[in-house]
């Protein structure tokens, strides 16, 4: 069904492609915020606007792009491919100054990425699907880590801590299991050994047998992602057997429900001492982030409760996506996507003589002075691979007394190295 709607979409695009194009001098360039604004994932849209609006505001304050102002246009995909494909075709057909898109999300990416790509619309997707890890879509860019990247981050953090024998304890649900293959590959690549790999039936009344089998293999660390009750029961039994050990979880294990369940099961002291969760690095520090934060808080008229997005890594990636598009247009001296898209990756690369810039305004100024630039975003340094995926860095977070505390990080370079090896 997804493919059929995608094909139909492509046919419509083929017909409408000639109708589009960028507007004349002084017209406003549109960035499509292409995400769910209604339905089960309705929170995605506002989160996207929390990055898009501050970015276009700063671009406009800096004099715009080649004489054009920019704006964000919400396009509701409803989180459903059946709605998203018509929404994409309508957006492409009716928005003559459409220069790029933020999105699509995992809800609609499979169906709409081909549509957007065929229309030569650069997109900064926020889907985590591993299917796009090695995609050939020329106009596809991703600043958020793919779901399977979590495995690399977990493996690298354990390696950095000196642990070489690990147990992988994951729920048998699809989401949790998607982390396992990359974790196994990466940990082996680093020289470690997964001594026990358990796929847990969820929400059982006891995991004593599983825990005993796992402990018999003498791991130094447990990698995990399971629902709160499952991990709470499992880890409490590890503790009851007197062999509590370090636990490294995915970002799921940093959600409040997981923290409360596991903390209640093993106690706050053990929680603080042993449990760490890995999540995409959103440092909420540094020059670029401060510029983003200031612009976000200043956009309170158009962004509802803006402070809620200040430390949101997704909002930061949308902000960076807009900046990269705008800077690429300057670099290409064109607002045509086919002209500027090839410049995007180069803007993030460190090169001799390149000036590091933290905002559109700074980048515009340096380029006007004839200098090469390297854009460092609100999310930090961006390193694209050849498939236009920027994994980003991960941070290790502990949760003493319910408060999150960053205790270290895994760099995007380390993750990319593992990806290349795997």
């Amino acid at each position, binding site marked *: 069904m997804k493919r059929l709607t995608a094909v139909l979409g492509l046919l419509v695009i083929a017909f409408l492609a000639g109708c589009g194009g960028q507007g004349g001098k002084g017209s406003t360039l549109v960035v499509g915020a292409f995400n769910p604004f209604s339905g089960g994932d309705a929170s995605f849209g506002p989160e996207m606007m929390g990055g898009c609006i501050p970015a276009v505001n700063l671009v406009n304050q800096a004099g715009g792009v080649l004489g054009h102002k920019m704006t964000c246009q919400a396009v509701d995909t409803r989180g459903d491919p059946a709605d998203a494909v018509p929404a994409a075709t309508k957006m492409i057909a009716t928005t003559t100054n459409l220069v790029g898109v933020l999105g699509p999300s995992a809800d609609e990416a499979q169906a709409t990425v081909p549509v957007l790509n065929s229309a030569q619309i650069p997109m900064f997707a926020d889907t985590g699907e591993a299917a796009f890890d090695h995609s050939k879509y020329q106009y596809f860019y991703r600043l958020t880590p793919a779901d399977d990247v979590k495995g690399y981050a977990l493996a690298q953090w354990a390696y950095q801590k000196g642990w070489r024998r690990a147990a992988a304890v994951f729920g*048998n649900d699809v989401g949790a299991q998607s982390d396992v293959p990359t974790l196994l590959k990466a940990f082996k690549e680093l020289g470690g050994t997964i001594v026990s790999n*358990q*796929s*847990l*039936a969820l*929400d*059982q*009344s*006891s*995991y*004593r*047998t*599983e825990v*005993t*089998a796992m402990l*018999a293999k003498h791991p130094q660390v447990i990698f995990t992602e399971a629902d*709160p*009750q499952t991990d*709470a*029961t499992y880890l*409490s039994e590890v503790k*009851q*057997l*007197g062999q509590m050990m370090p636990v490294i979880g995915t970002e799921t294990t940093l959600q*409040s*429900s997981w923290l*409360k*369940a*596991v903390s*209640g*099961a093993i106690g706050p002291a053990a929680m603080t001492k042993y449990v760490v969760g890995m999540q995409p690095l959103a440092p909420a520090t540094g020059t670029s982030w401060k510029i983003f934060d200031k612009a976000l808080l200043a956009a309170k008229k158009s962004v509802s409760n803006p402070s809620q997005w200040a430390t949101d890594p997704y909002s930061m990636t949308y902000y960076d996506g807009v900046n990269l598009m705008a800077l690429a247009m300057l670099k290409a001296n064109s607002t045509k996507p086919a002209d500027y898209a090839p410049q995007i990756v180069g803007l993030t690369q460190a090169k001799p003589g390149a000036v590091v810039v933290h905002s559109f305004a700074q980048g515009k100024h340096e380029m006007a002075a004839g200098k090469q630039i390297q854009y460092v975003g609100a999310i930090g340094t961006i390193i694209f691979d050849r498939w236009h995926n920027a994994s980003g860095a991960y941070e290790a977070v502990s949760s003493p007394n319910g408060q999150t505390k960053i205790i270290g990080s895994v760099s995007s370079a380390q993750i990319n190295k593992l990806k290349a090896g795997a």
Partner: protein
Amino acid sequence: MSLFVASLGFGLVTASILAVAAVGFTLQFGVTNILNLAFGDIMTAAAFMGYIATSNGASIWLALAIGGAFGAVFSVLLNRLLYTPFARRGTRLFGMIIVTIAVSLIIQNGIQAIWGPSFFSLKFSPGHSYHVLGSMVFTTAQFGIMGIAVVAMVGVYGLLRYTKLGKAMRATASDPALARSCGIATDRVIDVAWILSGALCGIAGIALAMNVTSFTSTTGGTFLIAIVAAAVLGGVGQAYGAMLGALTIGISSEVAAGLIAPSWKQVVAFAVLVAVLLIRPQGILSEVAEEKEVVA
């Protein structure tokens, strides 16, 4: 080999909780012919009563008593105020199942509305860990759970086997009309069945919460599948059968987790269920399942 022995032992803990719940579930069904699918959610509600009690300084043993009392009162009221009026209107087994599902959803969502979609833990210490036969390790709390199960099973056995009330319950389960005509106050017997079933349900709810350590509004409901499986395996309506069913499900699932892989835990347990029912469709010990419209 040691893992096999350990898994047998750990299976006893799971089987203990399952046995208390399954006996309560099947005892009530045997007497009243109502397949109460809200049973797991009443367990959850009892666990929350235990949470309130232990959060206010009560010991876990007092919490068990409170959970049992809550389950008993809640169940008998549920029957009197809801199920009996439906039964009097002639609602048959399938219709009653729908009613019990509705009650299940009401309880589950009611709990979520009051406490939120979060996780809670009983405030108690599981106590020291003891090594048994080398490879098995049990906490004081787990010995307590097994002890409770043994006492409950012996108690139910004694009640049904050696007391007038037990005989009356068995007679009511076998043929309510005949029991009435023999002078048995079946309404009172049914009340007692609900009280007993509810008390076991409440105790099982607290025991489950002790064992899983963190529970939420859906915890008991998730456990219901295993309870029904144990009851069906033993022969619906047969208290002794439920004990056997609980042991079979509890131990086979743990042994599967130990000898094959954790993801085979439920596969093996329910494959055993299907295999037994292929050989004995009425369950291991059932005399009444067929009469209760449970099997074809």
